[in-house]
C-alpha cells in the first residue's frame, strides 16, 4: 500500500469554527438593494381547481405583486433532468393551474419585506373545487381515479437474469416477505431558499444552495428562452440537502421572478413549506421472495416493488432504476427478477434522497435475508457470508464490475468486534416481562458515480500562483459533508503542497469548468479526486519541465517536497511560486493545466451494520443500545469526516426505521408537517456509533477511495429492524417501527 502524506490523516474542517460560532452567512442572511421577498402560496387541497382571491392581500402595505399561473412562462419541465440528454416526462410548472397535492405551488407573493409576505399570505383566500384524490398506492393501482392522463402508472421496469424455473425447482424453501417504507423528508436544517438578480449587464444571476448549478442553468434557459451565456448560477452556502435540494426548485421560481420583475428576489420557505412543498423520499411497497437451499445457498430472488411517485413525474425513472441497480451487487444469486412500477399519486413529488432507493430496497430485502436464515435455521451472519459477493465479481445485469468488494471482510470484522455469536445466542436471556433484547445485522451496497449509466466526467483547471498557492477550479457543491476539505487533501497529495495553500472552488456556471452531473450519485470524491490527481500529475510534470527548459536540469534529478522542488545531489531548492514566475517570464505560459477527466470504473461501496436493541414491550419504545457500522471505504481521505458521515447517516436512517414518516389521510392531507409531530431521532435517542473502516484500496479508484455519505444511510435501518424482530420474535417489515406498530404486533402475537 502506498504511503500518503496527507490522505488518511485527520484534519479539522476549515470552516468548522466559523460555523460553530454562527458567523457563516447563509442565503437568508443576504440582502440586495431593492430586493423583493417571495413566498409561495401552496395548495391546502390535494387535488382541486381553485380561484385565488387576492384583493385583501394586495392591500397589505409592501406587497408588490401576487403572481399566478397566468403570469409565468408556460413551459413544462422536469426538475430531475440534469442535462439535455435526459428527456423525461415534463409536467412541472413554476406555478400551476390546478393543484395536484397538498403543497402544490398555486401562487407567488412578492413583497418588500418578509413581514408583508407573511401578512399577505394570511389574507389570500383560496376557493377550491375538489377533485377525486389518489392518496395511496392501492388507489393509484386501481386506476379508478386518475391523477392525469389514462393511467396512474408512470414508469415500469422489468430486469433480471438467470434461470428462474430451474432455481425454484432446486429450492427447499421460498421465503416471502411483504413490507413497506414510508415517505420521509430530508429535513435539512436550512429550509429551501434561493435568490436571483439581474446584473448590470442584463444577465440573470441565481444563488443556489443546491447540488446542480448547471442543471438549474439549463432549466432556466428553457423556461425563459434565454441563452446559457446570460444565466449564471452560483452555488452558495448551504445548510444541508441530503438530496432535498438535488432538483432545482426555488432557483427556478426566484430566477423567473427576478427576470419578470427585473429586481432581486429571494424566495424562502418555512419548515412546513419545505416538508410538503418540495420533494420527499419515495414511499415503497415491496414483495420479496427468496428461494433457498437447506445448506444456505440462495438460488433465486424475485422482488416486486411499487413506488409512490407523487403528483409529478420528477424522479420516477430514477428511483426505480436506482433501486433495481442495488439489488444485483450485494449477493451472488444465480437468478433474479425485479419488477418495479412507479405510480402517480396526489402527493408531494418524489425526489432524490440520501442513498437513492438503497434504504427502501435494503429495508425489505435485508429483513427477508434474516427471515430466510431463520427458516433454514442458520445464523444470519453465516448465511450472509455464504452468499455475499466476492471481489471483482461481475454485475449480473451488465453494470460495471464490482471492483475490490470487501463486504465479507466488513462482515467478519464486525462479527468479531460486536461479539456477534455470543450476543446472538444469549442476549435474549436478559428478557423479562417488560423488556426484550435483540441483535441484528444488515448489509448494503452503493455506487460511486454514474459510470455505466450516464455521462460521467468532470473538468478541472488547476493553477499554481506565483505566491505558491494553488487554485483548483472545479464545479463541486459543498453540502456540509466536507467535500471541499476532502478534495483539498487530495489536491495536497497530488501536488505535494500543504492543504492550507490550496483553494477548491464551489460550482459557478460562469467560473468553474463544466461538470457532467452535479454533486449527486456519490460521485464527487470518487470522480473529482481522480480529476484532481490527473491535473496534479500534469501540473507536476509542467513544474519539472519548466526547470528542465529554463534551468536545464534533468527531470530525473528533480523531486517535490512540500511546495518546493529539490534537485538530487544539490542543495538547490525552487519554490512552486518561483517556478510559476520562471515559467511566465521565460516561457510565456502560466503554471496551470485544464483537463478533462472520465472515470473508467464504478466499484461498489459496502457497509455492514450491527445493532443491539432494548424494546419496551409496554410502551413500544425502542432503545438502540449499540450500533456498529463497518464500511468498505476503500481509503478514508479524512477519517474525521468519514466518521461524521457515518454517524449522521445512521441518525438519518434510524429515523426511517423507528419514527419518521409523513402521514397522509385519505384526502391527501399531511397530518404531521411540523417537527413537533414528525419525529426524528434526537440526541437522547441516538446511540453512540462505533465505526470500523475497512480500507480495501480499490485499484481502479483514485487513491483507492470509495463513497460513504450515502452508503452510511442504509444498513443501520434494517439492522435495527432485524434486532427488534430478534428481540420480540416478530416479523415486522412495515417501516417505521413506531411504538403503535410494535404494540400491535405484540398484541397479535399474544
Amino acid at each position, binding site marked *: 500500500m502506498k504511503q500518503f502524506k496527507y490522505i488518511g490523516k485527520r484534519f479539522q474542517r476549515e470552516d468548522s469554527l466559523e460555523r460553530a460560532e454562527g458567523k457563516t452567512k447563509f442565503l437568508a442572511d443576504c440582502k440586495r438593494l431593492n430586493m423583493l421577498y417571495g413566498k409561495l402560496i401552496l395548495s391546502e387541497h390535494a387535488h382541486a381547481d381553485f380561484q385565488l382571491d387576492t384583493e385583501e392581500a394586495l392591500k397589505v402595505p409592501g406587497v408588490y405583486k401576487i403572481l399566478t399561473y397566468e403570469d409565468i412562462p408556460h413551459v413544462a419541465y422536469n426538475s430531475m433532468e440534469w442535462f439535455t440528454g435526459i428527456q423525461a416526462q415534463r409536467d412541472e410548472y413554476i406555478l400551476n393551474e390546478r393543484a395536484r397535492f397538498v403543497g402544490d405551488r398555486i401562487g407567488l407573493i412578492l413583497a418588500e419585506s418578509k413581514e408583508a409576505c*407573511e*401578512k399577505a*399570505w*394570511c*389574507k389570500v383566500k383560496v376557493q377550491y373545487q375538489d377533485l377525486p384524490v389518489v392518496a395511496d398506492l392501492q388507489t393509484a393501482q386501481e386506476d379508478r381515479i386518475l391523477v392525469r392522463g389514462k393511467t396512474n402508472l408512470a414508469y415500469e421496469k422489468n430486469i433480471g437474469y438467470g434461470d428462474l424455473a430451474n432455481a425454484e425447482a432446486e429450492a427447499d424453501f421460498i421465503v416471502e416477505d411483504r413490507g413497506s417504507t414510508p415517505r420521509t423528508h430530508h429535513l435539512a436544517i436550512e429550509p429551501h431558499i434561493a435568490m436571483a438578480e439581474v446584473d448590470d449587464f442584463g444577465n440573470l444571476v441565481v444563488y443556489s444552495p443546491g447540488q446542480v448549478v448547471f442543471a438549474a442553468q439549463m432549466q432556466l434557459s428553457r423556461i425563459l428562452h434565454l441563452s446559457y451565456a446570460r444565466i449564471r448560477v452560483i452555488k452558495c452556502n448551504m445548510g444541508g440537502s441530503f438530496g432535498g435540494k438535488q432538483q432545482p426548485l426555488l432557483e427556478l421560481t426566484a430566477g423567473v421572478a427576478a427576470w419578470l420583475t427585473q429586481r432581486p428576489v429571494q424566495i424562502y420557505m418555512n419548515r412546513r413549506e419545505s416538508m410538503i412543498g418540495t420533494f420527499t423520499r419515495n414511499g415503497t411497497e415491496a414483495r420479496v421472495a427468496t428461494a433457498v437451499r437447506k445448506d444456505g445457498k440462495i438460488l433465486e430472488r424475485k422482488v416486486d416493488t411499487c413506488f409512490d411517485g407523487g403528483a409529478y413525474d420528477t424522479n420516477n425513472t430514477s428511483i426505480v432504476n436506482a433501486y433495481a441497480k442495488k439489488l444485483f451487487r450485494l449477493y451472488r444469486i444465480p437468478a433474479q427478477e425485479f419488477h418495479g412500477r412507479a405510480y402517480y399519486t396526489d402527493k408531494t413529488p418524489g425526489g432524490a434522497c440520501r442513498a437513492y432507493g438503497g434504504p427502501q430496497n435494503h429495508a425489505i430485502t435485508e429483513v427477508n435475508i434474516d427471515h430466510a436464515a431463520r427458516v433454514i435455521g442458520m445464523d444470519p451472519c453465516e448465511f450472509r457470508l455464504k452468499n455475499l459477493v466476492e471481489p471483482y465479481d461481475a454485475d449480473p445485469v451488465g453494470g460495471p464490475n464490482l471492483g475490490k468488494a470487501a463486504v465479507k471482510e466488513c462482515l467478519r470484522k464486525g462479527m468479531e468486534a460486536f461479539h456477534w455469536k455470543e450476543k446472538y445466542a444469549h442476549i435474549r436471556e436478559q428478557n423479562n416481562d*417488560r423488556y426484550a433484547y435483540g441483535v441484528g445485522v444488515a448489509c448494503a451496497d452503493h455506487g460511486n458515480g454514474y459510470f455505466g449509466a450516464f455521462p460521467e466526467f468532470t473538468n478541472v483547471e488547476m493553477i499554481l500562483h506565483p505566491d505558491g498557492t494553488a487554485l483548483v477550479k472545479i464545479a463541486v457543491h459543498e453540502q456540509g459533508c466536507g467535500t471541499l476539505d476532502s478534495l483539498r487533501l487530495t489536491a495536497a497529495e497530488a501536488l505535494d503542497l500543504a492543504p492550507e495553500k490550496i483553494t477548491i472552488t464551489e460550482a459557478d456556471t460562469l467560473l468553474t469548468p463544466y461538470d457532467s452531473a452535479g454533486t449527486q450519485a456519490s460521485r464527487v470524491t470518487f470522480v473529482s479526486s481522480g480529476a484532481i490527481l490527473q491535473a496534479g500529475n500534469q501540473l507536476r510534470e509542467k513544474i519539472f519541465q519548466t526547470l528542465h527548459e529554463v534551468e536545464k536540469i534533468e527531470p530525473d534529478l528533480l523531486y517535490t517536497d512540500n511546495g518546493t522542488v529539490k534537485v538530487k545531489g544539490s542543495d538547490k531548492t525552487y519554490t512552486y511560486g518561483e517556478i510559476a514566475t520562471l515559467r511566465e517570464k521565460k516561457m510565456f505560459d502560466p503554471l496551470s493545466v485544464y483537463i478533462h477527466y472520465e472515470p473508467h470504473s464504478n466499484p461498489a461501496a459496502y457497509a455492514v451494520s450491527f445493532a443491539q436493541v432494548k424494546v*419496551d*414491550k*409496554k*410502551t*413500544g*419504545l425502542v432503545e438502540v443500545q449499540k450500533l456498529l457500522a463497518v464500511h468498505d471505504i476503500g481509503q478514508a481521505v479524512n477519517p474525521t469526516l468519514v466518521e461524521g458521515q457515518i454517524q449522521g447517516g445512521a441518525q438519518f436512517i434510524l429515523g426511517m426505521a423507528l*419514527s419518521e414518516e409523513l402521514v397522509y389521510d385519505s384526502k391527501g392531507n399531511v397530518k404531521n408537517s411540523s417537527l*413537533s*409531530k414528525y*419525529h426524528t*431521532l*434526537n440526541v*437522547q*435517542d441516538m446511540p453512540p456509533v462505533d465505526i470500523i473502516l475497512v480500507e480495501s484500496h480499490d485499484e481502479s479508484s483514485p487513491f483507492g477511495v470509495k463513497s460513504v455519505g450515502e452508503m452510511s444511510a442504509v444498513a443501520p435501518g434494517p439492522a435495527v429492524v432485524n434486532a427488534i424482530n430478534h428481540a420480540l420474535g416478530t416479523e415486522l417489515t412495515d417501516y417505521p417501527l*413506531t*411504538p*403503535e406498530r410494535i*404494540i*400491535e404486533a*405484540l*398484541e397479535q402475537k399474544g
Partner: protein
Amino acid sequence: MMFTAPADEKELQAALSQADERTYLIAGGTDLLIHLQNRKETDCSFIDLTKVKELQGIREEKDWIDIGALVTMTELCASPLVKEELRALYLAAYHLGSEQIRNRATLGGAIANASQSSDCSVVLFAYGALVEIFSAQGERRKVPMDQFIKGREKTCLDRGEAVSRILIPRQERSSMFGKVGARKAVTIAKINCAMDFRMEEGLIQKASIYLGAVGVKPVEARLLENYFQGKSFAEIALQDVQELGKEEVEKAIPTRPSRFYKRVAVQGLLEDMIGALP
C-alpha cells in the same frame, strides 16, 4: 394592532379593559405563536404579561404554595421548594419540551392553552390546584382546575381576564408524574399521569390520580384512586394497578383508534411511576 407591556397589576387592569376579541395575552409565546400561525391571524393585539411583577415568583405560604403565572418551567425546576414538595410538578416541568421551550414556557400559559396532553394540567388537576384569575375590574376570583379547564383548548377565562397565580394546597404528600411520548425527550405526551397522595403514618389517606391525553381534559382515574386509598406503598401490587389502568383508558376513550396503543402504554407508564415512588 396594539402591543402593551404592563409593568404591574394596575397597568394590566388598564390593558385588559381595552381588550377586544382579537387581543391575546402573551407570556412565553411557545404555544400562542404556533396557534396564530396556524390560524393565519395577523391583525391582532397583544398584552405582554412578562413585565407584570405581581404575576411572578413562587411564594411559600402556610397552607399553599403560590406560583405566579409567569413562572417558567426552568424556574420551577430550579426551585428547591417545588423539587422537594411538589415532585410531580417538578417532573412535569423537567420533561416538558426542550431546554429552549422550558426557558420561556410559563405555568400560567401551559394551563391557559388547555392542551389535552398538557403535562402541567394533569399535575395541577391531581393537586386540586386553584387558579387565581385577575380581571380588568381589578377583581380576583379563584377557580379549581377542573372548572378552569372546560375542554380542549377551552378555559373559563372571559375577555378582560388573565391567569395571575396558581395555588397548590399543602399537605403531607407524595406525588409522582410520568408520561409516554414518541421518544425519550422533546416529546408531547401520548398519555400522561399524575398521582398525588396525602400520607399519614405511611398510609395513603387520600389518592388523587389523573390521566392526560385520554380525553379533551385530564380524566380522574377513580378506580386507581380507590385502589390506592388506605394502602402503604409496600402493599401496592403492580399487576392490579396495571389492570385498573387499562380499564381506566378503555373507559376514557372507548372508541378512539388510539386506545389499542394507550391501554398497553398505560401499563408501562404506571409501572415506571410506581417504581419511582419512595
